[in-house]
């Protein structure tokens, strides 16, 4: 890219802008569609589980790891143990 006159003026910045944008947007487009999917999965899985146990929506974590050949979906739901919880609540300073 640098010509023999390159030292006379700064290296052109447009190709840098172009490359940064391409990398960023590829990532962001994937994230937007992925975060929508995660929200749907999170809500539906939570719906099924909460039909049987009372679950705190704050204690549900869904994550997706996108690999080259396959992706993994991890669902982590904390199911509270009633008596333990009571104990904690009673012991907690108010």
């Amino acid at each position, binding site marked *: 890219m640098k010509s023999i006159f390159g030292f006379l003026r700064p290296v052109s*910045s447009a190709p840098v802008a172009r490359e*940064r*944008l391409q990398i960023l947007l590829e990532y962001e487009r994937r994230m937007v569609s992925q975060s929508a999917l995660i929200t749907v999965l999170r809500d539906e899985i939570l719906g099924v589980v909460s039909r049987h146990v009372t679950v705190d929506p704050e204690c549900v974590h869904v994550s997706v790891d996108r690999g080259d050949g396959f992706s993994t979906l991890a669902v982590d739901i904390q199911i509270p143990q009633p008596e333990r919880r009571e104990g904690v609540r009673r012991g907690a300073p108010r």
Partner: protein
Amino acid sequence: MGKVIVVTSGKGGVGKTTSTAALGAALARSGQNVVVVDFDVGLRNLDLVMGAERRVVFDLINVVQGTARLPQALIRDKRLETLYLLPASQTRDKDALTEDGVERVIAELRMRFDWVLCDSPAGIERGATLAMRFADEAVVVTNPEVSSVRDSDRIIGLLDSKTIRAESGERLEKHLLISRFDPARAARGEMLNIEDVLEILSIPLLGIIPESEEVLRASNLGAPITICGRESAPSLAYFEAARRLAGETIEIVYPGQKRGLFAKLFGRRAA
């Protein structure tokens, strides 16, 4: 039935309002009935660019809420009798807009006008999503600059998912309007060139508006540039863009494309 076009961008300051006014006036000049609608509730500016700021009595919110009828709120342009403005409210906030109310107003405007141009507020919140909600087509205004291109990409995603057309599986045509383009800087590699922006956003090009002092002059005077600076480069570019919007096929000439022999031989390598 008129066509509803949203003029949007995500980022602020890229030329949405200027473009809405310029395209509206260019379309109206061909004799068609045009209304430009300001959706930027709380920060209205289309009235100022149109030179109608002292004539606002009722606004979009009044019509949405039913406290004024549509004909009472419409302001007819003093220079072009087929051009109208529906101003935004200055005092209310964006929550005053309801989806049902906007749907009703858009339906009524569609009956009265050939073109309904909705000037979207910046951002991706309620005002912006309601401005695009009932659109048939979109004009995405983008500057050849990284943050503007990124935000346009987000807006294109919203146009493809949050509009009535998208939700009902219909196609919403999107047009890219590149504004504030400086051909000399692009040729020197200091500014993203047209091909770069087109490749990244991959929606069809409606026009290229060159950076020009005339744009500020027009907004100072309170007239769309296609009315007061008619022979200027940006005005001619807007006139062509308006004709393309109306379905004409006109070749797009990139500003600064006319090259000398030297540039033809050596210029390519810089791009």
